[in-house]
């Protein structure tokens, strides 16, 4: 252990002497904070114990769930979070219960159309420990949701107004401990004026945690195999420039289509070196039409275990 402990002072000394290149040669993860790792599964009550066995308890420190406006968190998931002392991340979806440009528009959210249900949700989770994360209206810079900024009748300004209302409701419902996570998609779809990440930024005072979500779908159609640094580098730069707050990869995953998922996960571990504000990663552990993102394969699970051992707390 002694040599490992000796590295940090040496690096500090090198930096102080202006030998920055040499100082930078120390292992990049040495000084970076450890992250919280979590997971989304369709049925976490059944799936989390199995995943815990496959990748270890560090892999499920956070349990992610999605809740349609007006509804509450599944009691089974709530109990699981309590039982396993995991942090609950609730993505709040103010729509009619299905993805797509349906449901109320952002200006209705801003007027408080979903306020009562949201307040109930906050009251349900506000006492959880560790403090729950609420991720309202994720990925507004994509066209896939009722709250998408590019949906007819919506706009980035309306999103910001809706967010302000959401925050007021959360705090008003006693959710002072509830951490508000603002997390756009890692790249804007479409990349068009008015749909940039920064356009949706509600203000540093309106959020507690920042983040982004993004996935490697592998080589599919006109998509390329995209490593995690490439996937998140630009979003991280933009988001942390807007608000220097803890950064979460609110959801990510990789398929095996056209590449090596184990290698992808190893590179995910390298992000702490280039993203010093990174504090959490949530894995999308699902097999679905867009790809198989599960950590099910032995090599993938082994890589994820190694990633957790190196990076997670």
């Amino acid at each position, binding site marked *: 252990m002694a040599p490992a402990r000796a590295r940090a002072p040496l690096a500090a000394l090198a930096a102080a002497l202006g030998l920055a290149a040499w100082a930078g040669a120390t292992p990049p993860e040495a000084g970076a904070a450890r992250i919280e790792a979590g997971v989304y599964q369709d049925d976490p009550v059944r799936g989390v114990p199995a995943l815990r066995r496959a990748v270890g308890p560090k892999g499920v420190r956070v349990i992610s769930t999605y809740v349609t406006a007006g509804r509450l968190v599944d009691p089974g998931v709530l109990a699981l979070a309590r039982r396993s002392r995991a942090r609950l991340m609730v993505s709040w979806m103010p729509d009619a219960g299905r993805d797509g440009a349906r449901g109320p528009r952002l200006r209705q959210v801003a007027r408080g159309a979903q306020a009562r249900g949201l307040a109930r949700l906050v009251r349900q989770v506000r006492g959880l420990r560790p403090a729950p994360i609420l991720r309202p209206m994720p990925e507004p810079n994509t066209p896939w949701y009722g709250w998408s900024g590019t949906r007819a009748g919506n706009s980035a300004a309306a999103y910001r107004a809706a967010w302000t209302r959401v925050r007021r409701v959360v705090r008003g419902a006693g959710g002072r401990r509830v951490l508000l996570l603002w997390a756009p998609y890692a790249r804007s779809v479409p990349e068009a004026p008015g749909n940039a990440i920064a356009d949706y930024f509600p203000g540093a005072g309106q959020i507690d945690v920042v983040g982004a979500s993004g996935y490697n779908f592998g080589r599919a159609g006109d*998509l390329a195999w995209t490593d995690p640094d490439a996937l998140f580098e630009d979003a991280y*730069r933009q988001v942390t420039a807007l608000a220097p707050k803890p950064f979460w990869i609110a959801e990510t995953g990789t398929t095996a289509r056209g590449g090596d998922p184990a290698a992808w996960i190893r590179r995910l571990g390298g992000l702490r070196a280039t993203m010093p504000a990174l504090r959490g990663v949530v894995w999308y552990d699902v097999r679905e039409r867009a790809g198989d*993102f599960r950590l099910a394969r032995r090599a993938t699970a082994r890589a994820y275990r190694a990633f957790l051992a190196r990076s997670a707390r």
Partner: protein
Amino acid sequence: MSPVAVRGRRRRVRRPAGGGVQAALSEAMVDRLMWRTGFGPGESDRRRLRGLSLHAAVDRLMRAPQGPPQGPAAVRRDGGPVRPHESDVDLVLDWCDRMIRTRNPLVERLTLFWHRHFATSRDEVSPPQLMAQQNELFRRYADLAAFPTSNMRTLAYEVGEGPAVLRFLTGEDSTARRLNENYARELMELFCLGVTDAAGRPNYSEADVREAARAATGWRIDDANPDAPRAWFDPTRFDAAAKTVLGRTGAFGHRELVDVVLAHPSHAPFLVTKLWGEFIPDPPDPATLRDLARRYVREGLRLRPLVRRILTHPAMLASIREPNMIKPPVVYAIGMMRALGLGITDETLFYGLRDMGQPPYFPPTVAGWEGGAAWLNTNAAVARFALANRLLSASYAPLPGGEPEDVPAETPAQAVQRAHRAVGRPWLASGTRSSLTYYAAHAPTRSAYERTSRQRVLRALMLGGPDAQVM
């Protein structure tokens, strides 16, 4: 209170269309990347990089080892090897030969960048070994796979203490008693800071130049053996007293001087902007510039991460349907030779580069070549076409693919297609393609001679025409 459903909601991700960092590189994107980072694409580049993300492709280029040059080495007109230390023509051709035969064009492109940045001219540097030695120094720093910690600080140390710059900027004559300010001025003005900052304020004063010159005294050159020239420090000629440069005071020597200059807040934006401009024609937006500069400083002025960030920036692929950067003459000429599979067999390339305005080792001023639109003045444009024509002629060298064959039954469109393949399938605007097809349809094709002439003309137009000048 109304009952509230608690059933969990299933999350399903959407697969977006390709774009941004997730875009799979198309052939046009691969071509863009290979022109901007090298000397144009070969078919093998297109095969191995197509479908990758920009990041993955750049990583491959940056990780590639230099390896030994491929193909036959350059020869003189008499068939003998080039002798770079005996003739300036051969000195230039020797480097061009490396560019033509390199397995990793990015190394040679970055070597060329450093040559343009720390511009030193053979016109004022003798013996020529000094230039060749400096070229090797640049190549070492350009080889980011072999030298991943390559950084501006030690590069500036080595350049300033290198015989080529000491001779070119007469630093070898600068002593405590007889000060020469040339190097100190260029260190700040051209190598590290620029004259003014972004707000137009001067980065340094005349007093700074004088004081900096004192710190750079004491260096001499030993070139008794011209094949092993070296600079050495003579303490008897050094001004050892305290100096004040850019607000800092100390008994600075050359390296401390470089440290002080590189610590100036204008350094990072200056270098980032210049390196960016080597690959991307439009300047970085202020936020990008700030971010790149901040990271460059935080990473100890390391060049590899900076180059990677620039090459993977989405601006690299901007205007992909209409290439918008003029190829520097060296890139244009070497790219053409690589596309045709030609090597150096006489002085054609040297004179071509001279006429186009960019003979390596001979920058016009200490500021290097102006570049940009200046590459395409009337004379240079004519010289470009003339070089393309010359390289395609049998009198230069037999084309590896052979002379154009006569294909009597060929349609105009097929003739255009064959010519396009023969010259490496360069970018052609749709209007250009129509014009070429129109020409092919109306050119005389009654005899074998006329048909092969048509093929030659098509190839020359594709290699020397306006579309071939941009990347």
